[in-house]
């Protein structure tokens, strides 16, 4: 039933010998339904629906392109405009700070990213900046071992900025340092203060928001709050190996302008793939 969205819409377009007003309305209606069902922020979905309709009705297809190909092109363009297309993390020395809501996959992704850089010849290390979650250090320690990278943490210490400062000092000769932080949400004033303090200490080159593909309408507002607090520069969407469509994650990207660089496709270190916008969009829209 969920598969009906874009496939249905595209069938209608493909079967039409020309694009007419009613057909466009119908196609856009199907796409809107798919967007909402994918967990896209409702206002964003309505906004995009308007845009799609306007463009499909007013733009002339470029030379050599049929009207139906043009409608498909418009849909993909608008989505890629939000998500980014082939943006990559640079293979160069940098400090990366991972942020996000509870249970999104930050700690697991630290390991995946660690292995990614290490394999490409950059000396990489992880810093256990989560000083709240029970056994957070032990979890990152095991993740680091699987990834083949060293770790710094201070299990008894509750002050995260202090641990991060010490970790950066220890790893100052390393190329890439990835800082794990604890889950938090926008309503927790103390934790928002903490992540700002950690950012100040870390001076990160990248602040990566990790977001679970299943998050719904809170994705956009929460991403915005993280962005206001520490300035998000990149996005990683996790758990797309499930059935969630990732519309919430797309809304998060719309709120931060931070392009998606990777997706998490499982629990193991190797389950990290470069973001493929075409695949993500066609999956989202069915």
């Amino acid at each position, binding site marked *: 039933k969920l598969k009906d969205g874009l496939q249905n819409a595209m069938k209608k377009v493909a079967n039409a010998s020309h694009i007419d007003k009613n057909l466009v309305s119908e196609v856009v209606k199907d796409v809107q339904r798919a967007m909402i069902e994918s967990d896209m922020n*409702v206002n964003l979905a309505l906004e995009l629906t308007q845009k799609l309709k306007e463009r499909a009705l007013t733009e002339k297809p470029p030379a050599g392109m049929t009207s139906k190909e043009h409608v498909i092109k418009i849909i993909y363009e608008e989505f890629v405009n939000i998500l980014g297309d082939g943006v990559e993390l640079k293979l160069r020395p940098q400090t990366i700070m991972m942020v996000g809501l509870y249970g999104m996959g930050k700690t697991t992704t630290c390991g995946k990213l660690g292995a990614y850089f290490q394999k490409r010849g950059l000396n990489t290390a992880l810093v256990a900046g989560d000083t709240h979650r029970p056994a957070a250090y032990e*979890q990152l320690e095991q993740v680091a071992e699987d990834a083949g990278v060293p770790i710094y943490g201070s299990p008894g210490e509750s002050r995260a900025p202090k641990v991060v400062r010490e970790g950066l000092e220890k790893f100052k000769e390393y190329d890439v340092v990835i800082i794990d932080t604890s889950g938090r949400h926008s309503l927790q004033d103390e934790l928002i203060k903490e992540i700002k303090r950690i950012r100040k200490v870390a001076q990160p080159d990248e602040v990566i928001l990790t977001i679970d593909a299943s998050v719904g309408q809170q994705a956009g507002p929460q991403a915005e709050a993280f962005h206001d607090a520490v300035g998000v520069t990149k996005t990683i969407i996790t758990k797309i190996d499930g*059935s969630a469509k990732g519309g919430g994650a797309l809304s998060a990207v719309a709120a931060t302008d931070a392009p998606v660089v990777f997706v998490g496709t499982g629990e193991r270190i190797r389950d990290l793939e470069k973001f493929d916008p075409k695949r993500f969009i066609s999956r989202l829209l069915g």
Partner: protein
Amino acid sequence: VDGWGSKLKENKIEPILWDLKVALLEADVALPVVEEIEEEVKDNLLNKKIGRKYSIEDVIETALKNAVKKALDLETIDLYDFIKNTEKPVSIMFVGVNGTGKTTTIAKISHNLIKKNYSCVLAASDTFRAGALEQLQVHANRLGVKLIKHSKGSDPAAVGYDAVEHARARRKDVVLIDTAGRMQTNTNLMDEMKKIKRVVEPDLIIFVGDALAGNDAVDQAQKFNEAVGIDGVILSKIDADAKGGSALSIGHAVGKPILFVGTGEGYDDLEHFDSDWMTDRLFG
């Protein structure tokens, strides 16, 4: 005033329902559920006569609220009554997808059971994830309860079985079984969960869902229910400003009651689910 003494027609109902629909969608109620409720409300209201003292808006909103409340007011289980009336040891298995709050929820329930003078045993049946055993051990130490665990990578079903045997031998009241997060689309892991159920034969199976989840909450609950049968649902992280519309979606989709909502990381951050509270939250 618009509506007094008149009949409700489709074109009058539609625009008012639209605004209410958007409110439900923005609260993370799944689209198919919103549409089904909308149909229900339309059937109830079409051609109905409105009394003199009501506005169309009020009538429609009341009808929608009643439909929502009906979906939420499922026959519920009082967990503590169930434990009181069930032969000991009572075993409760917790399941759900990755990162939803299963381990933390077990700690909260354990804390509450101890306050009610029940003795608990925890079973570390997540033998896969990094730091899973250690995480549950920290909770067990803080709560002063026994944790039954084997080595990492061992058979989760065996751990659960051991824990129940231990509870039986030591006359412990409740066994809380923590399982690994798993995607409902992962056949091998869903089979593993079925095996844990077969071997352990828990008295209750509780699905822990993330209140932050949107439409996927329905598929999760359905697949887990099909696989092992859910007796009740706990929705965590409702404090993350999540409206928790998935409570409605899940209730509507699998007909199982929401027992509690998680409102934070602390052991006291677990509250009884109340359908009136939820209805207000959804329309608030």
